[in-house]
């Protein structure tokens, strides 16, 4: 393969991308070398199995991916507001909407939430780490390398361009030759396997490692949402694994699953994709519901209203989420009966969702609300998300969907649920738990600026899109110079840049707070913490809890505070067993990443070599009987006394 086939050439924007990648990489290498930080990086981060550090790495990666996806979005909006400029050509536009969608859902929303789960869930249930800390590190590196593999596509080999849904036959070998689509397949496969492993890991952690006395129905609601989400992950992700594998076999080894020849069935792909894809949208919304529930209860200073109803509605949503996938292609022609069944099941989901909304409102009712930044995000979520949910029900009416389908109405719907739901929750959760992660809060004043810019930008950007959809503007279109559509498109683009500004302020706040925020002295940063994560000191010691409290109620920390109890009971101290750090996860996954990269270019011998390397690492691990070490009582005492100022 010639070099100019390997690298993408002829596009000024992409040359700019290459230059910036080269600059950033050399800057990082230079800084690490100059400050002699390589050893630190390896010892403290690349080999870590500590759930808190892994969580931070997830969140940092997710923020970078949010930046990348956001840059894609702004490019698309620029093109749509000024079609006359010919800023993007059709091919480039196709690539950008594909990478935008994929990056945002797979490499931004999910890792962000999984990052928060990583840090918070063990703390909420009184555990000292995950059930399988080594596997947790493997999962992270699978996600991270999968994301890098996908992202490198725009400079090497070319980006995928068949949409994040990658419908066949368009995405098949005949109509999308070359490595682009393979990047999509392998990037998702690699990170998807990591997600599945995390799902199992967290499920076992929650089922087996709760504090003594803590029953399932004592668990904090965010932990509940995680458990339910893991259930969805375990039953939905294998479907994606299979779907991606089948398309890979189609493309690389000439099978005929989704082809137009050999009696293949392209619509099989749509079915498989959405059998995973619809549960996937609930994978990214249920944890968001969990975060909002925590934040609202904390700043309404009340116990969450209707705890049991909240849990059961999540469970019902999880079950229903597997029964609605056909609503994504009512127009495929499955017939009136099938469409009606799925129409009804779709609308049913609105019922448990409505229950949750009323419970949040009831929690707020007659409470003394404290308007902190996480609370603002949560309060803004409720009305905004309702707009998305109600239009979802409109789309769920099969007959009407023949009009709405694949129009900007649909685009507005899912951005209202994904942004007002998932993204607001990520911001709310990050700000809320920030002191637990970094030992200081984010600045509230700057945080409010970021919030208002983002919120207003969001509504200006997406509300007009409902009307564009009703005016007949289809999605994935790059020419919009139709007089009727242009004004609303311009307004929408203005809003998009508002969101971009909001994000920039948010990121600036991370820097500003790092420099200037007051350092936390107690563990209960907001003063109204209700659940166990607030009972640990800040920063959280690596073993989390010196002594694990006995829990027999919801919101145990409220009573602990009243009774003056802490997680440091000198009389009960015992040596703590902790897992050792290991370089194996990153090495193992690098081999698999190498194999995936080789498969993208269909270099079979290299792919086999990579696979064998990965399998050899697994075998090596099987012989590794290192089962951790003990932290001695003295060390625990010293650490706790220092952290508590005793």
């Amino acid at each position, binding site marked *: 393969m010639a070099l100019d086939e390997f690298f993408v050439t002829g596009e000024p924007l992409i040359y700019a991308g290459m230059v910036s990648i080269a600059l950033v990489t050399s800057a990082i290498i230079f800084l690490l070398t100059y400050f002699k930080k390589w050893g630190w990086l390896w010892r403290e981060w690349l080999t870590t199995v500590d759930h808190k550090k892994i969580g931070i790495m997830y969140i940092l990666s997710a923020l970078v991916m949010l930046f990348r996806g956001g840059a894609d979005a702004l490019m698309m909006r620029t093109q749509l507001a000024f079609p006359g400029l010919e800023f993007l050509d059709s091919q480039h536009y196709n690539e950008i909407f594909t990478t935008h969608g994929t990056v945002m859902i797979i490499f931004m929303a999910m890792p962000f939430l999984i990052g928060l789960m990583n840090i918070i869930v063990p703390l909420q249930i009184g555990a000292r780490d995950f059930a399988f800390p080594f596997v947790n590190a493997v999962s992270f590196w699978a996600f991270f390398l999968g994301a890098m593999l996908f992202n490198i596509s725009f400079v090497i080999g070319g980006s995928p361009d068949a949409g994040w849904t990658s419908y066949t036959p368009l995405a098949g070998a005949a109509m999308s030759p070359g490595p682009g689509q393979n990047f999509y397949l392998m990037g998702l496969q690699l990170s998807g396997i990591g997600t*599945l492993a995390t799902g*199992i890991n967290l499920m076992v952690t929650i089922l087996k490692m709760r504090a003594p006395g803590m029953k399932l129905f004592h668990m904090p609601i965010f932990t509940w949402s995680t458990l339910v989400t893991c259930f969805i992950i375990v*039953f939905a992700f294998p479907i994606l694994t299979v779907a991606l594998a089948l398309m890979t076999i189609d493309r690389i080894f000439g*099978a005929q699953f989704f082809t137009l020849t050999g*009696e293949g069935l392209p619509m*099989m792909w749509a079915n498989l994709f959405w059998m995973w894809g619809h549960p996937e949208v609930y994978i990214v919304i249920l944890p968001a519901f969990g975060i909002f529930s925590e934040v609202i209860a904390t700043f309404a200073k009340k116990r969450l209203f209707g705890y049991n109803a909240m849990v059961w509605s999540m469970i019902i949503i999880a079950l229903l989420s597997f029964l609605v996938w056909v609503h994504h292609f009512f127009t495929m022609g499955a017939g009136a009966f099938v469409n009606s069944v799925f129409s009804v099941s779709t609308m049913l989901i609105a019922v448990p969702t409505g229950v949750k909304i009323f419970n949040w409102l009831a929690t707020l009712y007659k409470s003394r609300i404290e308007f902190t930044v996480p609370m603002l995000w949560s309060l803004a979520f409720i009305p905004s998300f309702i707009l998305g949910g109600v239009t979802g029900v409109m789309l769920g009416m099969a007959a009407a969907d023949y009009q709405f389908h694949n129009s900007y109405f649909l685009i507005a719907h899912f951005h209202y649920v994904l942004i007002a739901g998932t993204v607001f929750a990520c911001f709310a959760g990050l700000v809320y738990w920030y002191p637990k992660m970094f030992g200081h809060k984010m600045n509230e004043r700057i945080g409010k600026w970021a919030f208002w810019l983002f919120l207003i930008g969001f509504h200006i950007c997406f509300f007009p899109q409902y009307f564009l959809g009703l005016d007949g503007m289809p999605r994935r279109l790059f020419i919009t110079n139709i007089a009727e559509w242009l004004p609303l498109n311009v307004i929408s683009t203005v809003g998009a840049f508002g969101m971009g500004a909001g994000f920039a302020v948010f990121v600036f706040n991370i820097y500003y707070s790092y420099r200037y925020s007051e350092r936390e002295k107690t563990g209960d940063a907001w003063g109204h913490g209700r659940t166990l994560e607030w009972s640990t000191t800040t920063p959280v010691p690596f073993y989390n809890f010196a002594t694990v409290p006995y829990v027999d109620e919801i919101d145990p920390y409220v009573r602990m505070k009243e009774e003056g109890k802490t997680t440091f009971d000198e009389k009960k101290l015992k040596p703590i067993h902790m897992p050792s750090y290991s370089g194996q996860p990153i090495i193992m996954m690098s081999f698999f990443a190498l194999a995936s990269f080789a498969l993208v270019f269909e270099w079979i011998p290299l792919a086999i070599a990579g696979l064998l390397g990965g399998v050899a690492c697994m075998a090596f691990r099987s012989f590794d009987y290192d089962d951790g070490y003990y932290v001695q009582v003295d060390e625990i005492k010293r650490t706790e006394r220092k952290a508590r100022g005793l």
Partner: protein
Amino acid sequence: MSAEERTTGPLEYRTEAGRMSILGFWIFLGAEVVLFATLFATYAVLFGRTADAPHPAELFEPSMTLIMTFLLLTSSFTCGIAIHEMRRGNAKGLATWLIITLLLGLGFLGAEIYEFVHYVHEGATLPSSAYWSSFFVLAGTHGLHVTLGIGWATLLLIQLARRGLTNVTSRKFFIVSLYWHFLDVVWIFIFTGIYLIGMVI
């Protein structure tokens, strides 16, 4: 992670770590069920879409698949005996029966490879049609699992020779046995769903 250890009950359940690994593996098997269910669904949908390639009823032979079924079902039985021996604390019995299990598994694999080669000679290849794609991928995924299982159990046998029966090794053997029985169950579905139905329709 607590390192407290019980003194009664099967070795593999005595530590919390052992119990967690076993639960985790059960959940993993749940995911595997979904994986195979998806492949079966794909197979069912693509059934009959053979294009110009031979029809399965022309190629499937009862004798060959019966031999494969016999080999794999017996191996599940011997695997059960191996775990029984392990529970009795008999490392040697465990090793012997597990080796028999793996040999039966190898026999199964050999038969499957022979069968695949035969079909390919008759013109039923992976790219020949949607039906044959789904056949090879479904049966092949199962075969790949069997291969991995054989490799994995072999590694465990080496560990057994080095360390004897401990909480950890017996947990590993117990888990690999769960995996092996699971593959047997999948095969029963393949045998009835693919071969028996394919021979009559």
